[in-house]
């Protein structure tokens, strides 16, 4: 899952990005409105955490412009908690709203819910044959036994599970599993796929040659 954070307070931006990465997300950052809008429009993020008060272009403007081309789930982050601000945010097309100061667990829960909703899932648990993926606890079970996965491996499983029965291209996987700072070594993905297959069974992830990967 790749997430964009647009926030102008450097300390907040840094710790949010760090926390999200430690949760297994790929996190891109932008510290002003123009950069944020550029990135939001250029990549298919799984979610965007967007501050309202930003230099150069404010959060409302980014949201308004972004909604013309993309349906990326947006979580607004703001210090204004008056009702009219919330209404404005939701009306402009924000999918959720978190008021500063916030607790990280709540922010993460809301992000998970946003991503889940955008994938048309209503529960946290996705069952694929013998494999059960709990997106809230970020656990994977094989025949009801927990399977140890690295954060990146888990993200791969989760992304494919959320896009079940779809063929997911390598580019898509790169875009969603790695952030802008990571060098996208082409064989890194193959390593993760092969590791997952070792842990969850060779037939769990199917390869569609020339297209990408798929979970049936």
């Amino acid at each position, binding site marked *: 899952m790749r997430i964009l954070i647009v926030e102008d307070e450097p*300390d907040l931006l840094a710790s949010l990005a760090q*926390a999200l990465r430690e949760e297994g997300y790929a996190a891109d950052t932008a510290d002003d409105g123009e950069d944020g809008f550029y990135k939001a429009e250029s990549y298919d993020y799984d979610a965007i955490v967007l501050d309202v008060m930003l*230099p150069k272009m*404010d959060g409302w403007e980014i949201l308004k412009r972004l909604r013309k081309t993309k349906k990326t789930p947006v979580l607004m982050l703001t*210090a204004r908690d008056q009702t009219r601000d919330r209404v404005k945010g939701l009306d402009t097309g924000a999918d959720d709203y978190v008021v*500063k*100061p*916030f*607790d990280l667990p709540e922010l993460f829960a809301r992000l998970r819910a946003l991503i889940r909703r955008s994938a048309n899932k209503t529960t946290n648990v996705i069952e694929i044959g013998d494999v059960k993926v709990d997106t809230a606890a970020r656990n994977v079970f094989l025949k009801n036994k927990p399977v140890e996965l690295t954060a990146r491996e888990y993200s791969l499983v989760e992304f494919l599970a959320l896009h079940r029965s779809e063929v997911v291209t390598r580019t898509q996987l790169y875009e969603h599993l790695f952030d802008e700072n990571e060098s996208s070594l082409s064989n890194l993905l193959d390593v993760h796929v092969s590791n997952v297959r070792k842990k969850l069974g060779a037939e769990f992830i199917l390869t569609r040659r020339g297209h990408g990967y798929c979970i049936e």
Partner: protein
Amino acid sequence: MKIFKSIKWRLQLWYGLILVVVLAGFGFTAYQLERGRLLGRIDNELHRRVGILASALHHPPPRGPEGNGQPFDRPPPGQFHDDGPQGQNPRPPREFHLSLEDAHFFDASDPNGFYFSIRARDGKEIASSTNQPDRTFVTSTYTGGDVNWIQNLPGNTPTPPKVNFFEHYRETFEPLPSGERILVGCSVLPELKELHRTALNLTAIGGLILLVGLAGGGWLVSRSLKPISSISATAAKISAGDLSQRINVAEAESELGQLAAVLNSTFARLETAFAQQQQFTADAAHELRTPVSVILTQTQTALNREREAADYRQTVEACQRAAQRMRKLIESLLALARFDAGQEVLKRLPFDFSKIISDYAELVQPLAAERGVKVITEIPSLQVTGDPERLAQVVTNLLTNAIQYNQSGGEVRVKLKAQGGLAELTVADTGEGIATEHLPRVFGRFFRTDESRTGAGNAGLGLAISKAIVEAHGGTIEVASERNRGTTFTVRLPICA
């Protein structure tokens, strides 16, 4: 009693009372006039009949030797006094003969007809009509000068004719100069009944007028007090917290309309003040939220797992920065609050203003160098009276602003001079200037040219505090700005006398 405290009911009561008094006076007068008219008519009739009866009294023709030989009706005036009731030689009583023509004035068959009684000076009845009221029980109730008319007359002095009531009879009693006494009366029952009817009519009309007056007055009072109830309803809504309420001023020209207009403008000012206060609180809260978010996110992230010492250090540093920012904000807010409440105690020292300015111009030099800004000073020695620390705060604020909002390679000109009894400090930068529409808000709280934070820790309170400090010193602070040319702040302070 609540009802007597209401203006409406007190007004009603008052003019109700006044109306009652006026109507009662008017009715009483009308009644008296009517009574006088009716009784006057009857009294005229009574007097007329007394005349008729008097002319019907004749001396009997002389009857031989036993008569006193007097041929005339009346004794000569000189002898009259001798002919008192105690006279030893009473004359024979005169005879009464009523002509038929005159008799119809005394119709005994009519219960309301006139009756009469004539008595000689010795009290003996000469003649009377048959329809006289029974008077046997009279003495106690029949008051007046002629209670004893039957018995005697006090002296021989002719008393003036008297008209009196005996029960429902109107009577006149007249002594004749010749000594006879004539009483004529008649029942005034119909007249009394008529008077009674008149009284009833007057009461009814008066009552009607009173009712109409009260109803009309009540309507008028309710109508004119209506704005008051609308005013109090609006005021109640406002006191309940809805400051956007206004009184509907229907009649602006009436006194209450003017009051409503005044109240409305007060409410508007109140609403503005409240909105400003609310905005200020919201802004202050907003400014505090971001550093708190930093601390929360930083610490929660750090505590998520075991870290290297360097990571913890980073977290602590970030938290410190956030805390410093909050401290600065809180200090600014407290300073503003103290200035607002007039609680800020300023020192009043004469000191060299130029010293402070050059000191701080020196102090900001590293910041200026970092931004590539040149600070040019022109500071002659000048004494002012005030709080050196607070004024230094103003100087620092203006200098750092001029450097921060400047462009690289720009300059800041700091000039101090005496001008018209005032010390005039100008700080001019060569930055991009402030848009004209923003100029009035420059000294406002939480004002920033850029809507977002351009530098962490700059909450937009500096100029507001500077203004408060300068004004507390009896000075002024002004701003002039030209787009892309720069901004100039001018501070004027009274020179030390």
